[in-house]
Each structure stands twice: as structure tokens, then as C-alpha cells.
């Protein structure tokens, strides 16, 4: 018996040594890096994961950094950015964060310019609510619904399951600055007379509510924003509103402006990594690019790393714009190798 145990132990030890060697062979040749690591914020939504993947690829291949993504909610990653534990925020939805302008003015972090700006947010309904969907056998329930104000006539369509005599509007996530505006809009248009404004609690729950309604072919109206995978996957229509006006907007009376989504870094990182900061300052995409990348992920089932490679191969000219000739070549070699 003892002999057997000894033999098994020996065999196991041998296998472990073997796998250690094999593992060593597997590891990517990362000895050449300077040893610096850039920490990116991953706030969970898909677009930031894509932009992280692109920036990480370039940080590794062109600059020789190590990279890491740290996952957390907006307030947590934001606090970590201020304290310098997170270095880079690829998507700062500054206009949506009440505390951001003050912190920026106080010099607690550095903004490096636009990532993308042509986005949209507001109240969305599935297209089949307005136009119907012959394929799925859905009749148009609210054919004349075009604007936010029209919602007044359709409270019965969007009935609140917890209070069926009133309609339900899925609001923005409480704590986002847009939530304050949406609540004002809800009162300003008199929707509070026949609708409940329901706080979804988290963006995951809001997405689940839209997805569930869409699968069932049920009407739903609520706040959402794009570019997001949800808007890529499901056909939702943004309800029209009065044209944007900065003064009236905060009273909830106009459509939302597109938000300047910027790239931010911590003060410490800004001071110590001027070259990478210069690259991030040049980095700019668009909502269209982001949506295309998210669709690529959704359609192919590939990871964001692959989407980043695909994107840079498709938009080769960007490399010359963003990087020195030498760095661009290093990235190209990595993409093709």
C-alpha cells in the first residue's frame, strides 16, 4: 500500500515539473518590458471594454507596458482614479456625473480630450410598438407615437405591472446626473399624471427589463443610451423631443445633447508617462466606430481583444495618426504576426 502511494506521489511530482516547464514555454515573451503597468478602468459596459482593448494592445505592442483592467462600478473606479490606483479611464461620461466638473476644476484628475461625442440618450421604445412587426405577428400598438409628449396618450399601453391603472417609464439609474433631468422632463411634460417613473436600480437591471420586453414583444418605454450593445442588438427608437437648448435642457424641456465622452488619467500617471499620455490625447473614435466594434463582438462571439485587432487592421491609417512610424510598425507586426 505504502509503495503505491509513494509511486503515485512520484508520478504526480513528475507531472507537475513537466507542466511547470510547459507553462514556462507557454508564457509570452514579456521580459522586454520596462516593468511599468497601466491599470485601465473596466466599468462593465461593452464600449469601454472595446476601447480598453485597443489602448491596451497599443500600450503593450508600441510602448512595452504591461496592462491590467480593474473592474468596478462607476463611483468605485472613479474614486480609484482620483487616488491613482487606476491610471486610465477610456470613457468618462463627464456630463452624466454630477461631481465630475468640480473635481476636474479642482485638478484632481486630467482630461485628455474626446474619445467620441456623437452619441444619444433619452427615452426609447421598441420599433414594433410604433410600426408593428409582421414577422413576429406584432400589431402596431402606438402608431402615432413620435415624441416624448405623445406618451401622454399611451399610458395604458405601457401599464405598470405593480400599478396597472398607470403607465410605467423606466427611468435612468439613480445617481446619474441624467436621472435628475429625466425626472424633471417627466414632470415638465405632465407625464407624472399618468405614469410612474421607476428607478431600475442598476444598468444591468435596466438592460434586462428591455431585453425581457423585447423577447416577449411587449411595449416598454424607458431611458437608454447609445452606443451600447443593447441598441446594437435590439431595434429601439429614440422618442423625439424639442431641439437641444442648454438652458431649457436642465429643466427637462429639450432633447439630450450628445455627451462628450472623454479620456481621463490620474494626475500621477499624467506626470510620469508623457509619451503614452500624448498618444491618448490623439486617440479619438466615434459612436459609429464603437457600435461597429460592438456588433462585431456580438456577431462573431469573439472577445474584445480580437475586436481590437480587427478594428486596427480595418483602420490601419489610425496607427500613423496616433503613433510614431516605429511604434506603428511594431503594432502592425503584432497584428499580422
Amino acid at each position: 500500500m505504502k509503495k503505491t502511494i509513494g509511486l503515485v506521489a512520484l508520478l504526480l511530482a513528475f507531472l507537475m515539473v513537466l507542466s511547470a516547464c510547459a507553462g514556462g514555454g507557454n508564457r509570452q515573451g514579456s521580459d522586454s518590458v520596462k516593468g511599468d503597468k497601466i491599470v485601465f478602468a473596466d466599468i462593465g459596459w461593452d464600449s469601454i471594454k472595446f476601447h480598453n482593448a485597443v489602448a491596451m494592445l497599443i500600450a503593450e505592442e508600441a510602448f512595452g507596458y504591461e496592462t491590467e483592467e480593474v473592474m468596478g462600478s462607476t463611483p468605485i473606479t472613479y474614486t480609484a482614479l482620483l487616488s491613482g490606483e487606476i491610471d486610465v479611464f477610456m470613457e468618462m461620461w463627464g456630463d452624466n456625473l454630477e461631481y465630475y466638473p468640480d473635481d476636474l476644476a479642482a485638478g484632481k484628475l486630467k482630461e485628455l480630450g474626446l474619445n467620441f461625442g456623437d452619441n444619444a440618450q433619452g427615452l426609447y421604445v421598441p420599433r414594433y410598438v410604433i410600426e408593428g412587426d409582421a414577422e413576429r405577428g406584432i400589431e402596431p400598438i402606438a402608431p402615432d407615437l413620435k415624441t416624448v409628449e405623445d406618451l401622454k396618450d399611451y399610458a395604458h399601453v405601457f401599464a405598470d405591472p405593480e400599478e396597472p391603472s398607470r403607465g410605467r417609464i423606466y427611468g435612468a439609474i439613480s445617481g446619474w446626473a441624467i436621472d435628475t433631468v429625466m425626472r424633471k422632463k417627466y414632470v415638465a411634460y405632465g407625464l407624472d399624471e399618468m405614469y410612474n417613473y421607476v428607478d431600475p436600480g442598476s444598468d444591468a437591471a435596466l438592460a434586462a427589463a428591455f431585453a425581457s420586453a423585447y423577447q416577449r414583444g411587449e411595449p416598454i418605454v424607458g431611458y437608454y443610451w447609445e452606443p451600447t450593445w443593447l441598441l446594437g442588438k435590439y431595434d429601439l427608437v429614440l422618442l423625439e423631443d424639442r431641439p437641444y437648448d442648454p438652458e431649457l435642457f436642465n429643466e427637462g424641456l429639450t432633447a439630450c445633447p450628445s455627451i462628450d465622452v472623454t479620456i481621463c488619467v490620474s494626475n500621477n500617471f499624467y506626470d510620469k508617462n508623457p509619451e503614452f499620455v500624448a498618444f491618448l490625447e490623439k486617440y479619438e473614435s466615434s459612436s459609429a466606430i464603437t457600435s461597429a466594434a460592438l456588433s462585431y463582438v456580438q456577431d462573431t462571439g469573439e472577445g474584445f481583444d480580437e475586436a481590437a485587432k480587427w478594428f486596427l487592421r480595418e483602420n490601419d491609417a489610425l496607427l500613423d495618426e496616433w503613433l510614431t512610424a516605429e511604434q506603428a510598425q511594431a503594432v502592425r507586426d503584432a497584428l499580422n504576426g
Partner: protein
Amino acid sequence: MPNWIASFPDTIKINIATPIDNFVEYINVNWRPFFDGIKTGLLGLLNGVYAVVEFIPWWLLIAIVFALTWLLMKKPLRAVLYAVLMLLIGILGLWSYMQLTLSIVIAAVLMAIIIGFPIGVLVSTSNHANALVRPILDTMQTMPSFVYLIPAVMLLGIGNVPAIIATTIYAIPPVIRMTNHGIRHVDKEVVEAAQSFGSTRWQTLVKVQIPQAMPTIMAGLNQTIMMALSMVVTCSLIGARGLGHEVVIGINRLEIGRGFTAGLCVVILAVIIDRLTQGIYKTEAGDDHGKG
């Protein structure tokens, strides 16, 4: 060097995520009446509980806490302390939030008892049932709660109803476990005595085993209430209102004070409910000793 020794072989890969997605989508589309029924039922339950809780004026509730503490624990000073703590919830401006949170907890705990207690009794009488239920309970207790929060939203929508379901799932295991445990550990001689006097199986269960197991069952109930209270806060991430909602708003806006204020009220509520329910089952245990 063979790769499969160092790292898990790529060839052995099963994707269970897609079938689960499809399954949830399938029941979401096809079992609608079923979930609508659950929704209506739970909403009725919650509204009923809330109506009662809301009907009790603030001073009466504080008086009830005061009187119960005194009666159950025989400690007047502690009774004053708990009354002051309850008062503090009102002073912090969170009384109505507390009422809603309490209602959701009560509704979820009622569901847990209605479902959990019979299962616990059943499991205590059958080893087969026990072997079947135990791994399920283990799964329910260790599965990260966010995993089933989102399907709860898919199937039941956003708001207080899915919160009750999620809270019930999270908080039911102690009721089942402790009911089972309590009944199984009733003194064999007591059970034999009952049987030798001609009790039927049902009579033995209802008149001897369950009363004898009551302290253990109540201890389970106490755990269930505590777990429900903690889960109700998490459920604010799927739109449950009340104290947890305040916590979430506080976090989202980086208003640390606001989060803490609401958090403090959850703590007060938890401590008082915990001590009171403990008081109840300890008194019962004590009485049993007196009779025995």
C-alpha cells in the same frame, strides 16, 4: 511539450451559457401567464403586509418594540435603548423607507416559511428527500446572488416583486435546514413514548416532534430574517425601494453620508429584529425546560 499537461485542454469544452440563455428566453416568452400569476400573488401579499405596517403609527410601533423587549428579555434599560434607536430612524428621516423595507422582508420571510417549513418537515421524514434537497440548498446559499437577480428581472420585471422572489431564494435555506435538523434531533425516547401510547405518525409529528423542535426552528427563522434583511438591500440593484435604495443612491452619487445614514438604519432594524426573535425562541426554550 504536451500542452494539455500545463493548461486545461482546449478540446474539452462545453458551452452551457448559451443553452441557459435560450432556456431563460424560452420561459420568458412561453411561461408568461405563470409568471404574471406569481407577480400578481406576490404583489397582493406585499401590498397587504405594507398596508398593515403603514397602518401602525410610528409611536405605536416604538411602543410595541419597547413592550416586547421588556416582556421577552426582562431588561427595561434595553427596552429604552431599542425605543430610542427606533426613534432615531424617524429622526434621520427614513421612517417611511424603513416601513417599506420591513414590509418586503416580512413578505419574503412569510414566503420562506410557507414554502420552507413543509419542505423541512418532509425532508426530516425521508432520507431520500434529504439527499435530494441538501445539494439544492447548498447551491442556493453559495450561488452569487447577482446571478439570479438578473433572470428575476427578466421574468418578473423591475421593482419590489422580483426582490421578494430573490430574497426568498436567498433566505429560505435556514428554515428548511433547521426544521429538518430540529425534528430529526428530537429525543428518540420521546417519539417512542408517543408511539407506544398509540399516536399515529401524523399525531407524533404535529403534537410531539414539531413542538419539541420549535426552538431549533425558531433559530432557523431568526437566521432567515437576518439573511432577508441583508438581501433586501442588495435587491435595490434591481429596483427594490426602501432603505437599500437610499444606500444605492448614496453610492452612485458618492454621497457617503447618505449611504451610511441608510446603512445605519438597516443595522438598527436588524439588531432589533434579531434580538426580539432570539428573545422569543429563548423564552420558549426556557418554558420547555420549565415544563420538562
